[in-house]
């Protein structure tokens, strides 16, 4: 554990909130997995399970006014940024009550009002957008930061490189968070990326670059806290590499022939939720019972989101042409 934790009540509240968010992501996605299998959720669905500490650790330092850009694997970022799970589930169900009125689906969930600038179906595309959000903040001198979440595959996209260079020369309040989950679909980061330590790439744009255990929400949170402080002070962008892992297939339907169950188990045995839970148990800040209550309340929230989604109206076919333009 890289941060020393004082068990005062504020800190306890903070940890509990992180735990709750991580658990919400986990339970939400476990349920989405089932809903997808039952074909009630359609399209492409990419699950974030295993990586919860990254989104939650980073976002624990943000306010609603801050921005994040996300990826095809966006549920975790949404929940960490505070997007309502009811709206999210309804969105995956394709209903009018969804976060995006059923028009976006899993790959395009967004809630601009909360600074969540969108999951994205295009690998790497969020990076320039985060730069734009950072520019906007800098121009207004509002102190908002913009976080760009992306994974190891995206690191080799030209747009990400361009974005990092621009953020650096313009000294923008942007934090590039590499979710180094070891794979891009079936392709290992060791094959596709020409450097062993991805943080070298951040340095090649003169950005403070650190590498942390992405399975440890406190380590992530602390690294992000430093980057956020730097950004708010106008000292420019940072790069944080979080080593993490996705437990599920690339998308629902992936047979995962590119790795073994044992490979996955190594990380499952280092689970970020279990880790925080244990830590809090040791600290005396969370009893077994409290955890069970927390979990039950999260499960209830998810269950309610499914009921909400399932009982929501479908959009009317005539709505298909709405929302393309503000004015025609």
């Amino acid at each position, binding site marked *: 554990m890289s941060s020393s934790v004082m068990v005062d009540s504020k800190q306890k509240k903070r940890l509990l909130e992180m735990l709750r968010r991580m658990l919400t992501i986990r339970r939400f996605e476990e349920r989405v997995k089932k809903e997808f299998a039952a074909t009630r959720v*359609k399209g492409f669905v990419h699950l974030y399970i295993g990586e919860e500490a990254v989104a939650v650790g980073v976002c624990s330092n943000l306010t609603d006014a801050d921005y994040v850009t996300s990826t095809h694997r966006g549920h975790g970022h949404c929940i960490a940024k505070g997007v309502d799970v009811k709206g999210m589930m309804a969105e995956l169900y394709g209903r009018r009550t969804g976060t995006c009125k059923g028009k976006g689906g899993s790959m*395009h969930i967004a809630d601009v009002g909360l600074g969540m600038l969108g999951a994205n179906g295009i690998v790497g595309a969020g990076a320039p957008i985060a730069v734009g959000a950072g520019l906007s903040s800098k121009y207004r001198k509002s102190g908002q930061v913009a976080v760009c979440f992306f994974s190891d595959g995206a690191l*080799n996209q030209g747009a990400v490189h361009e974005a990092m260079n621009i953020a650096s020369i313009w000294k923008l309040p942007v934090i590039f968070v590499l979710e180094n989950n070891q794979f891009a679909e079936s*392709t290992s980061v060791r094959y596709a990326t020409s450097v062993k330590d991805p943080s070298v790439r951040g340095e090649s744009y003169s950005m403070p670059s650190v590498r942390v255990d992405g399975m440890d929400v406190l380590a992530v949170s602390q690294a992000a806290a430093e980057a956020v402080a730097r950004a708010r002070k106008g000292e420019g962008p940072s790069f944080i590499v979080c080593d993490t892992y996705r437990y599920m297939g690339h998308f629902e339907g992936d047979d995962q022939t590119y790795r073994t169950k044992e490979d996955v188990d190594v990380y499952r045995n280092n689970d970020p939720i279990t880790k925080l839970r244990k830590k809090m148990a040791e600290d005396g800040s969370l009893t077994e019972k409290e955890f069970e209550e927390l979990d039950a309340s999260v499960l209830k929230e998810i269950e309610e989101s499914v009921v909400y989604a399932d009982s929501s109206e479908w959009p009317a076919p005539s709505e298909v042409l709405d929302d*393309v333009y503000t004015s025609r």
Partner: protein
Amino acid sequence: MQQVDQQQRNLTFLQAITEALSQEMERDKSIVVMGEDVRIWGGVFGRFKGFREKFGDDRVLDTPISEAGFVGAGVGAAATGLRPVVDLMFVDFFGVAGDQIVNQAAKMKYMFGGKAKIPLVIITMIGGGLSAAAQHSECLYSVFAHIPGIKCVVPSTAYDAKGLLTTALRQDDPVMFFEHKFLHSSTEGRPVPKESYAIQFGKADIKREGTDVTIVGLARTVHQSLEAAQELQTQGISAEVLDLRTIVPMDEQAILDSVKKTGRLVVVDEDYPRCNIATDVAALVASKGFNYLDSPIGIVSSLDTPPPFSPVLEEAFLPSVEKIVQSAKAAVHRT
């Protein structure tokens, strides 16, 4: 007979594509395949399954998620003696590799005064119907048909796919090969011979003969048009269904001939409605076949909006059998 039956199988559209590629790779050692996840997965929906084992890592190259980089590598390899097949997973991703396709692959031969050959095949998935939403459901072949210098193949059946891909791999110009993902498991159309065969580019195929109205389609809309034709038949209307198969080159003569015969035209294109293949065909007939026309041209396209996610909305967005039937009936009755 017996022998023919053995040779002609009901392959799926995807199997036919795999077979064409595999047979040509056996024949021609200069063919290499590159793209994301082609080795272990055989590409995201298994188009290249088993290729790594059969042809080795030298000829089956996994790439980073660097489309400009690897499409461009395909261009450079093609210009220097290889015959690369590059997998641009979904056509919706063209924007990250666009320059290498439109400014390099398509133009190199011309800019160099003819003194280059770019035998590059870019294979990419198109089309809706799977709730894949705004960035994984597009057709966009109209964009590539717009750009001079790159041939565009948009097959509708397993039989055509195999024969057209074989041709793509035996000629020396860059080709975009559009594979409609909704058709992957389709076995519609003629059975597929085991041996190689090539279908000439620029030859439309009459998938059904008729006399009252010509319905021009491509990829999935050919099947929708055939269903519509059946429905129209029950209403006493005889529809001819013409499958363009390649849109660059496009078989203008076949379109004009058919309209000359029927006097009426409906064009069905799953691409966005503005500046698409439907408007292209309509403009062709309105300028070069105007006097054959007895009634206004009917156009059925996707709607003028990004593809929506919700199945309810996507259905409203896409062309459908019903929309084609209505358009054809209007064409016939407005005469």
